[in-house]
């Protein structure tokens, strides 16, 4: 029972983190049908910012990380703006190139070896409740995810900007005809994505205490699986997909025989292929994604 509860706690924290990763991708996919491969590098940049600035004062570190990721997201938006009218593949390759560029720049500036620091390491202490143990960082992860999702829900459902965002995600050409300004709405989505990346970066770096140019690769792949599982372009789907993936990963790592553990991520990728082939709109589908002639 304790073992199960421990797995559940682990699953929920992982799920919360993964849902955050996935939301960052889904927000952008929703408004411009673009799979943002450079999202992982936003996290990487935020991670370096937090590690370097946060060494003296964690609060400043968090702020710097958020500013860096948000600004980078805005720059990315400017770069891919000309690609908006082109087919999805061009955007895919554009963000792939930006991702490669940022990774190479990080190697150029910080070197290829991991940089270590102590930013946020105090969070790694664990609290015990009965026979269960949970680290402060896990609690922080859960809380920050809940807070971010509440804020995002409020933004989407209670503000005019949110209304416009949802309108663009639903049908971008119709929204444009009705006077929604794409050059305002899409940057907002990128900033939201950047902030999500910044928080994710802080949580990741606090966990491991290291940053390297390839820091963002794993979060990107996780977000990639989660958004496709949940249905590309829906916000609910991204959260559900992330949660599901986190829970499944945690339970597999607790219950799978150790010889099979390295193959856990393959299960996720195979699930992606199965979902794409059998349920092209994901587990939670949105009507507007169907292509019409």
């Amino acid at each position, binding site marked *: 029972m304790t073992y199960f509860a421990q797995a559940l706690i682990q699953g929920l924290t992982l799920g919360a983190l993964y849902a955050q990763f996935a939301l960052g991708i889904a927000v952008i996919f929703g408004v411009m049908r673009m799979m943002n491969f450079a999202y992982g590098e936003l996290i990487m940049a935020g991670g370096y910012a937090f590690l370097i600035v946060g060494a003296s004062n964690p609060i400043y570190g968090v702020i710097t990380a958020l500013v860096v990721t948000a600004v980078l997201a805005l720059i990315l938006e400017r770069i891919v703006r000309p690609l908006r009218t082109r087919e999805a*593949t061009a955007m895919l390759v554009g963000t792939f190139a930006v991702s490669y560029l940022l990774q*190479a720049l990080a190697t150029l500036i910080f070197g290829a070896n991991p940089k270590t620091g102590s930013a946020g390491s105090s969070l790694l202490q664990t609290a015990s409740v009965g026979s269960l143990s949970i680290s402060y960082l896990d609690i922080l992860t859960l809380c920050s995810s809940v807070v971010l999702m509440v804020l995002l829900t409020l933004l989407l459902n209670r503000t005019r900007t949110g209304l416009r965002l949802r309108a663009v995600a639903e049908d971008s050409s119709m929204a444009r005809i009705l006077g929604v300004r794409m050059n305002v709405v899409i940057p907002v989505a990128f900033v939201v994505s950047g902030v999500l990346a910044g928080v994710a970066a802080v949580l990741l770096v606090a966990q491991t205490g290291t940053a390297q140019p390839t820091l963002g690769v794993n979060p990107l792949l996780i977000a990639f699986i989660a958004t496709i599982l949940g249905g590309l372009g829906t916000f609910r789907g991204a959260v559900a997909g992330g949660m599901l993936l986190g829970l499944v990963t945690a339970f597999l790592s607790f219950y799978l025989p150790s010889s099979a553990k390295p193959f856990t991520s393959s299960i996720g990728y195979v699930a992606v292929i199965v979902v*794409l*082939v059998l349920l092209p709109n994901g587990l939670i589908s949105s009507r507007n994604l169907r292509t019409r002639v």
Partner: protein
Amino acid sequence: MTYSQFRRRGFSVELGVLLGVVILCGLAATAASEVTSGVITQGLISLLLVVSLYIFSGNSGIVSFGHPAIAFAGAYAASLFIIEPGQKAMTVPGLPEALISAQSSAVVSVAIGAAFGAVFAGVVWLPLVRLSGIRSSLASFAVLLVVLNVANNWQDVTGGQTGLSGLMYAPSVLSICIWTMASLVVAAVYGASRSGRRLRASREDEVAAEACGINIALERWIAIVVSGAVAGVAGAIYAQYLGTLTPSMFGLDLDFLTVAMLLVGGMFFLRGAVVGALLLTAVAGIFGRIQNGGTFGFITIDPYPGLAQVAFALLTLIVVLVRPEGLAAKPPQFIANWLHRRREGKAAGVDTVEDSAEKTSMEVHS
């Protein structure tokens, strides 16, 4: 056969020029210094990979991120046959006895790689050919991730992260040239075949093609099998050239490099594959030398790790933004003028139909 019949089968002047470029590269590689020759050889190997990507992506219009997985499969199958049985028994004890003792010559092993690449692609892509556009690209990316994950962890069979080593043959410049030229011919002949033309029709307009009775999934499947065979050759040659085979050789870096090369050159054109692969290899090679530091004439440069990648990514990004159809999509002005004059002088024949078809496809994408 008359010239126009040859042309309809894919043997155009353009193919001749491309084959000539490969021969020139081969000659340059034998004449140049060791470093330069290495860069040129790498360019030709990249070209092999990019051609295999072109066969599928260029004709179907779907960017595949899964080709390194096929290349790895082919390289793995080929490499197994050119490693000492004693060494195989140590690194990959999980294989059946027959495979551990099996051995072959270099050429046969490359052929085995081609066959395995084709089979692998044919089986894995069976469900994927039904997908279009971005979904197909993402699914092929997932295929690559599965293959990398399995290859990295299935220690007994793939050798895990350290992979296979002790490949007995290193390919000569001549054999690399021959394989590259063969792949170009395969790509041109496939492109001119019925299946290739049907697939390009589906690329231009999926709905219209389907309405004309084209079975898009079937044509895509044929393309991926042909493309898989070439990818298998490319992987096998790449592994032989380096003398080892590890999953990380076929990781996300190679994935990005090959896709970028094809897009920079021009995804819908065989000449695009050649221009992209050779140009970007040259850029990477030049910046790679600067990045390693050293003295160039009067200038001394400190080493900057990552510089070559920055140059590579910037160039790709600029081309994707500024010339989305690729650098080689339209011929340079003086060649265009010459072609125009040549066509003006010629009476209307079978060729005109094809030329106008090519022209419209260019207009659609420019």
